[in-house]
């Protein structure tokens, strides 16, 4: 943990009208760390990663990525710096094939020639076990394939930090394992990962560290075993 953090979130606040979705969140992620972000429904997880990836701009506080202040940058600039995200509800480019979907970030974030892009797209699709569907129209995919495409596209942004927003919700046990294996393989390549997940088995097994949000506040931050013993976390989930 003595390396400088790849991501440093300081006192981030986000309000929607009168509703405070994030109330001064602090969060750091070390290079190639696996971080689980959990919390009851509506606790602010998706809002937080939107402030990190740029689809929302924090009302207050600061987001730093590799030491650079990115609080107010547009999403595509952040992507260019190395933040990749998947969407909770898949948002494929419906008029394109799977390979073309992956090529978009490769082309706009990377610098490669058409040939290099094509071969890298193949690599990524291979990693995601989507290579057999490379020439299929994205709108013809099923749920698990769409989730994998989301991750594949996020990987194609050449991220140093990958944010996986509920990539496993609604999937079967085997499918969850498959996504977990993929994410581990991604992590092995030195990519830090923030995993948002409701499936406890998955997130507890995957993460080196867990951060728990409740009602827009961070209530716990520690190793999975600690978190499970933490009375505040139990209270957040089970109530008092």
């Amino acid at each position, binding site marked *: 943990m003595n390396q400088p953090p790849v991501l440093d979130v300081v006192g981030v606040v986000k309000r929607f009208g009168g509703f405070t979705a994030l109330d001064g969140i602090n969060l750091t992620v070390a290079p190639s760390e696996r971080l689980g972000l959990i919390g009851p429904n509506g606790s602010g997880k998706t809002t937080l990663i939107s402030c990190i990836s740029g689809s929302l701009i924090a009302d207050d506080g600061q987001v730093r990525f590799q030491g650079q202040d990115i609080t107010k940058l547009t999403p595509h600039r952040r992507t260019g710096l190395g933040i990749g995200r998947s969407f909770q509800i898949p948002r494929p480019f419906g*008029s*394109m094939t799977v390979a073309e979907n992956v090529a978009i970030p490769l082309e706009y974030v990377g610098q490669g020639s058409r040939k290099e892009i094509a071969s890298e797209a193949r690599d990524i699709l291979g990693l995601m076990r989507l290579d057999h569907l490379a020439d299929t129209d994205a709108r013809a995919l099923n749920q698990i394939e769409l989730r994998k495409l989301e991750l594949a*596209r996020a990987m194609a942004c050449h991220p140093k930090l990958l944010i996986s927003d509920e990539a496993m919700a609604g999937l079967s046990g085997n499918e969850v394992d498959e996504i977990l294996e993929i994410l581990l393989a991604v992590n092995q390549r030195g990519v830090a990962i923030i995993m948002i997940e409701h499936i406890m088995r998955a997130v507890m097994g995957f993460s080196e560290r867990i951060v728990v949000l409740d009602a827009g506040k961070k209530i716990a931050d520690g190793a999975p075993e600690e978190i499970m013993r933490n009375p505040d976390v139990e209270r957040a989930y089970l109530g008092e």
Partner: protein
Amino acid sequence: MRIGWFYPIALLLVLGGAFATKHVDSNFVFYAGYVVLQFIVLATAWNILGGFTGYVNFGTAAFFAVGAYTTIALNKALGLPLLAIMPIAGIIAGLIGLAAGYFTLRLKGVFFSIATLALAVVLETAVANWGYVGGASGSYVIPPAEVPFFDNYIEGLFSLMLLLAVVAVGIARYIALSKIGRGFAAIRDDEVAAECMGVPTLRLKLIATTLSGALMGIAGAPYPFYVTYVEPTSAFSLTYAVNSIAMPLIGGTTTWFGPVIGAVLLGSLQQWATVTISSELNLLIVGVTLVAFVVLAPQGLVGLARKLFGRGGRTP
């Protein structure tokens, strides 16, 4: 790099057209052909923004007329020849496109559409009040008596418009097959996802509005020489807008050749129909065709053909 089939065919088309001027005697062919080609340019230009990125420009007539009136003004003031005026017309119309996009595209897309619609009205009023270019009563342009290489100026204009059409379609095709075009398609499919995948969406949209506007302006520049008498109501006629929208939607908006198909079909039909039926009925047909296609065949003829040949399904 491979040359591919497009450029040789394009070259052949231009040469063939120029060759035809030497061997076809009927001027009607060139008068009618000019209009169809002009619609190919306008439809293609509209589609670079509307079809590729999904933002609707209602102001084709405004950009077209900017080109036409640039010619009138510069021809009168400096006596510049058409070929020198065309790039200037493109720059002016392109800047107007850029400004309209810059002010409205950060908001919801419909505001851009509304702004272009209002732009047409305001520019028309401005021109109608501008005495130097003839005001509301219009002005005459005297075409040059001699045109190098051609027997008469209409053949020259026809060949020029043919070249322009080929260049415009070439640009649209180049974009469609390039990084920019893939970025456009990403914006059209899902702008939020595109932005998160590193696509600079605002910049790309501004490129589209500028380029689209510039091509429309260039297409309008030769217009005064074609009609020889220009007045605001004809230069700003809504028929340019409705045609440039109807043609891509009929052909198919997501490809570079959809607008060409639509322009050739609808343009030729109109040229044929103006001879046989009244011009109002003619316009009514365009309007009804537009509405019928958007309601019944939303992907246009290209989409219908694809459905017929079953592309887009799942490859086993």
